[in-house]
């Protein structure tokens, strides 16, 4: 059944294709047609920007969940139940992305057509050789510290990586706060995001050890 994204299926009123509920009758609507990069900011109805009030985002998420969650449609028609499931799925995915600064930055880049290394196989730019060498060396040091240095040595290494992560985050925020980041800035941001992934894995490994103790 073709469902026009521009008119409410129930009352026929015109609506925006990203709106989850009909502005006229309040009925839940089918999700927008699939796109290469769906705009997750639009799902939550917040401005497309890196800067964002995380408390406000959470409140918006809760308010939309109250309206769209399948539990609210347990007594509705199968069609509305399906729309509710699809809309809530989109909402949960969008919120998961936007509440995390790293994922939010990645999504902003994706919307601008820039790929981040490691995001999917074959995609994105390759990492510089010197970074990969540094990463290998860091890992060896961590292994050594675990075997011989004990918890203090491991904690010291982790502290160093946390510092690097913090610096990278700040640089990403600076670049994305600009109204029109240059191509060079975007490429640099993509590389920093790839580094962040590496730092996170490294710290997970350290904390994994902490949990074992």
């Amino acid at each position, binding site marked *: 059944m073709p469902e026009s994204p521009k008119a409410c299926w129930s009352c026929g009123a015109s609506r925006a294709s990203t709106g989850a509920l009909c502005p006229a009758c309040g009925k839940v609507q089918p999700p927008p047609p699939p796109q290469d990069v769906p705009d997750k900011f639009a799902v939550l109805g917040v401005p497309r920007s890196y800067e964002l009030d995380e408390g406000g985002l959470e409140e918006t998420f809760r308010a939309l*969940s109250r309206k769209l*969650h*399948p*539990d609210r449609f347990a007594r509705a028609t199968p069609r509305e139940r399906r729309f509710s*499931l699809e809309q809530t*799925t989109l909402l*949960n*995915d969008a919120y998961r992305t936007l509440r995390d600064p790293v994922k939010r930055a990645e999504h902003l880049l994706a919307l601008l057509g820039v790929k981040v290394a490691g995001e999917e196989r074959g995609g994105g730019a390759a990492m510089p050789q010197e970074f990969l060498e540094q990463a290998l060396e860091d890992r060896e040091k961590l292994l050594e510290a675990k075997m011989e240095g004990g918890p203090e040595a491991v904690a010291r290494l982790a502290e160093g990586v946390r510092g690097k992560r913090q610096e990278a985050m700040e640089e990403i925020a600076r670049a994305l706060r600009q109204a029109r980041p240059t191509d060079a800035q975007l490429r640099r941001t993509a590389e920093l995001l790839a580094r962040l992934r590496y730092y996170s894995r490294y710290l997970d490994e350290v904390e994994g050890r902490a*949990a074992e103790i």
Partner: protein
Amino acid sequence: MALFQIAEPGEARTKEACATAAVGIDLGTTNSLVAVVRPDPETGAGKPRALPVDEGSTLLPSVVAYTGDKTPVVGRAARRLAAEAPRDTIVSVKRFMGKTSADPETRRLSPYRFAEGESGTVRFEVRGRAVTPVEVSAEILRALKVRAGEQLGMEVRQAVVTVPAYFDDAQRQATKEAGRLAGIDVLRLLNEPTAAALAYGLDKRSQGTFAVYDLGGGTFDISILKLVEGVFEVKAVGGDSALGGDDFDRALAESLLAGLQAERTPRLVREAIDSAKAAKEALTSRDSVEVSLGGRTRTLTRAQLEEVILPLIERTGPPSRRALKDAGIPGGKGLAGVILVGGSTRVPAVRAYVRELFGLPPLADIDPDEVVALGAAVQADLLTAEKPQHDVLLLDVAPLSLGLETMGGLVEKLIQRNTTIPTSATQEFTTFADAQTGMDIHVLQGERELVQDNRSLARFRLSGIPQLPAGLARVAVTFQVDADGILSVTAREQLTGVSQSITVKPSAGLTDEEIERMLLASIEHAEEDVQARLLIDARVEAQRILKAAEQQIESNGDLLAPEERQAIEAAMQALRDSAAGKDHRAVQDAIERLDHVSAEFAQRVMDRGIERALKGHSVAEFDKGEMSPHAQKAYSALGGDTIKMVSPSGKDD
């Protein structure tokens, strides 16, 4: 004309609206419970309450005894049979849900005889036939359904059934199938800790992040929930699906047996476990207890018990810490409270450990045995009531990561654990050989890297991929998890649009033929279900009629000659007696007899009503409800408004 036809306006509709009930069911390892939210007739506010379903207790032991009769025995009566027929009496069936006979745990656990299933499902051999864990669980659910129906005076058709948060997809599917087999429409599978938080959150009107520490007979679950303005958001869950109070009993039994030189017969081991359980329970309120085993009596202190079980209690620490970290509050900083669930949290050493682990004294105001069923009842009310009693919403998570097998026996995770559900994820794969036309999709659940260390949920094959050089075909695999936490998988070749889709039927689950066969077998029970339903209907009708008759005798008794009154009261008593019995036909007969002997009285009452109405009543009298109900009815039927105008202050008696 019959007395009960002179009904209060709206009464018949009330009966219609209440004819079925939606309940919450805690299908537990050791005990099962059923609870329901009923609005208070006076205030309209509704609180959940657990129903007494087994010899006056709200706890129905999860024990099913196959006796050779058509219907198995369930509950305390079944537990009493366990000693004489241990192999035909299934205890703790929940531990077998969704397991295959190949699972090492399966055989370790039990004295049962197993038969091989068509798809590797566990089957118990009882009285010459094979039953699956799903069928056994369905017997427990059916007992709860029927007994709750008797308590409520209406049929139970819908239920929210709770499962441990840590249940995997196979175990959830098995639980849903059990509900279907028992004739229950399972509205939702709800995670047990979430249900508990729901019961607490409503009572306390609280806000903040809570930990739910749920230590039952066989499983440990930890959940971290955030509660803000009536929205419960599950932040993280974790646990150990093979740790519980039963392990305390076994460990203590082991230490009791170690002190004896006797040979370990199965009978002695069983006795040791029973003694250990009794001692553990006694030591929650006392410092020492006498234990007799194998002809020897010794004193066991609480300190000795704690020494034995502490290593087990400490196993709850790592999953708890991991859940706190996943929820973004490492170390539990800023936690508003810790909720205790499950009978094993009565053990003082557990409470002390929880206090230390979270740095907070735990909450245990609601009976830890009932709290899960109460929360499930609230959710059932939320999902079915026109106007639910509480405005809350639950946002739950997928408890375990879901992924696919990729080259080299590795798992590619599509959905990470603790992702809010419903959710979906898509990943693209390509062919690795030239002209490859098919692709095997192997769906896995778990946190480990290697396929072999995770739970295999399903395998299926996408065929019809166009013949292309290796790496050119693109297959998108989409996982969708619904609000029950149940997964469906779609694989779609992007060029041609060839697609293949399944709702994951767990490898450990049942084939369609098996489900079909079980449904057929359940028709054996259908006759009983119909009888039970008819009886409930007849009882409801009887109560309504008796109430109407009492009212009429009270307000119009003066219209009756003494012997007429006697006859009617005798017929009423006969109806009360038959309604207390089990035969719906007897109830129907008694209703007809009462109808017959009261017919003339009903006619006189009606005549009087019309007469009075025509003489006119005051508006004030009407509003104050001073007219008898039948007069009110006659009054309005005859156009009371007009009459009021004629005689605004008239009063005739």
